[in-house]
């Protein structure tokens, strides 16, 4: 599978501060790649290095195989991006901004501009000056300018920032559709774990400038053998299970136990509990939430990501 974005030992220092410290990334074509991390972890700096806005102190970053600093025109030719709060020319209209930015990417037809404005929900305000736009409208325009030239890679940094719940939902659906229907690769940085969990196919977590974990979402959140056992007398049942070498009890609740069962031996667990006189109501595989995965990497005191 073609690697669309590749970062290799990427580093960035601002004075004595190591904002990014040896980051490796690989985003394959078709991925909806979620990039997570707490504030100050290095997400924005990484995205800026991918977009050629910030020069790496060491390491390389390639987009479509081209070094972004050495060959930025070719590297970014098929990229659309929304980097933080989008900046627009306040004295121009939304349409004029979109036209001007598309011209920098080789141009877009009038129809493409109109479509981008329509998809962003700005068709009615397209000819108003941007200085009259609300924050949410500018965010939509930011997404529109990222998509107007039909890119193959879309880099979105906090795309739902400033949007109302309806807007957030629309953006999520839009992002899912980009990969599914238009074959675009999406690189998404967000604080909203729930949003990332819903739309991304892969995630990477960055903390203190380093990658803490990454992989396909389905795999990371599959639970890997975790089960929730609904049983009477959970505490006594947990004590009994603790003696088994293939079971690790991680939590005891009022009416259930959370445990990791290796090698898929849940049927054996059920048999042993029943044989021990316990009433087992249900044994259900327990998925890891992205929040749990995230905090397991970043630690709760640092993790400032918003779960919802």
């Amino acid at each position: 599978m073609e690697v669309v974005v590749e970062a290799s030992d990427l580093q960035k220092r601002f004075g004595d501060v190591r904002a990014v410290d040896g980051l490796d990334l690989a985003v394959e074509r078709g991925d909806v790649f979620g990039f997570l991390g707490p504030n100050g972890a290095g997400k924005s700096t990484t995205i800026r290095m991918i977009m050629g806005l910030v020069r790496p102190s060491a390491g390389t970053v390639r987009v479509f195989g081209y070094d972004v600093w050495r060959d930025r025109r070719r590297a970014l030719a098929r990229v659309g991006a929304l980097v933080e709060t989008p900046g627009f020319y306040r004295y121009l209209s939304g349409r004029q901004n979109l036209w001007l930015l598309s011209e920098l990417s080789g141009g877009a037809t009038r129809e493409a501009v109109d479509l981008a404005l329509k998809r962003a929900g700005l068709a009615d305000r397209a000819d108003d000056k941007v200085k009259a736009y609300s924050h949410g409208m500018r965010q939509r325009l930011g997404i529109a300018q990222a998509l107007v030239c039909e890119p193959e890679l879309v880099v979105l940094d906090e795309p739902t920032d400033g949007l109302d719940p309806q807007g957030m939902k629309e953006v999520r659906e839009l992002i899912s559709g980009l990969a599914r229907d238009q074959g675009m690769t999406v690189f998404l940085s967000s604080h909203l774990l729930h949003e990332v969990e819903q739309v991304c196919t892969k995630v990477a977590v960055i903390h203190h400038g380093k990658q803490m974990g990454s992989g396909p979402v389905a795999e990371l959140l599959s639970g890997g053998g975790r089960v929730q056992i609904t049983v009477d007398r959970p505490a006594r049942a947990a004590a009994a299970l603790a003696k088994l070498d293939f079971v690790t009890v991680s939590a005891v609740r009022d009416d259930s136990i959370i445990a990791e069962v290796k090698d898929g031996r849940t049927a054996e667990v059920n048999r042993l509990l029943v044989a021990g006189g316990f009433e087992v109501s249900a044994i259900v595989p327990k998925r890891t939430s992205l929040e749990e995965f995230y905090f397991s990497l970043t630690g709760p005191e640092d993790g400032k990501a918003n779960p919802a």
Partner: protein
Amino acid sequence: MVRQIRLEVFKLVRRGRSYLGFGALLLISGLAVVALLFGPHMIETSMSQGFITAGSYLNGGFVAWMMLNAPPTALFLPLFACVVTGDMVSGETADGTLRTVLSRPVGRGSLFAAKFAVSVIYVVALTLFLGIAAYGIGTIFLGRGVLVTFQEGSMLGAQGIYVYDAREGLTRLAAAYAFVSVGVLSVATIALFLSTIVANSLGAIGGAMLTLIVFGILAMFDFFKPIHPFLFTTHLDRWRDFFTTPIPWGEIRTSLAVLFAYIVVFLLAGLTVFTRKDVIS
């Protein structure tokens, strides 16, 4: 790069502050004509001992010449140019549009070159506009005629008075304004360079104007005479030589060389900074 220049021009003409300079210079030209119509101007006094004067030297050509000579022009023309060029990079940095633009597949070098090209266009347009406005308003209210200029002194007493017929006067005025545009461009390029290193346009504009003022002060004092030839402000006034006979082409060439050197140096410095800078705002 042609496309980028076109886009920069597109932005320039749609921005209100681009017209600030044009409006102000039009106003100043109008006020100058009013001052000439109703105020004291005794250039004849300098000649009165030996000559009878007939007619009036007040005409469009004289207004156009006088605007170059007027102290406000020496300050306002570069200022209005810097208002635009000093905002070229720093203004976009502050607004976040630089980040948006550089997320596009545009070379930083060609983008900066396009901004410089538009700076040149703007400076030349602004300077020529001053000449055309002054000449036009002057001609409307005062008519046309010979061009009377003076090298030293002031309107109230002058020496080195040079008089040219209307056609030759116009040619010399055109050459002088062309020269002045190079001078203004030198200040504007300093503003453009500063625009790449400061985060707001006020710093770039202020810095360029401060440079103009400080260098101008240094050029006034004999103590700094050894460095006078290297100060660009020393050469800004060379436009006056287009109104002497014979025209000292050698000195004009030298002044142009110094001014172009400043333009090239600050352009390259700005280009170097711009192509390497981290866009973190």
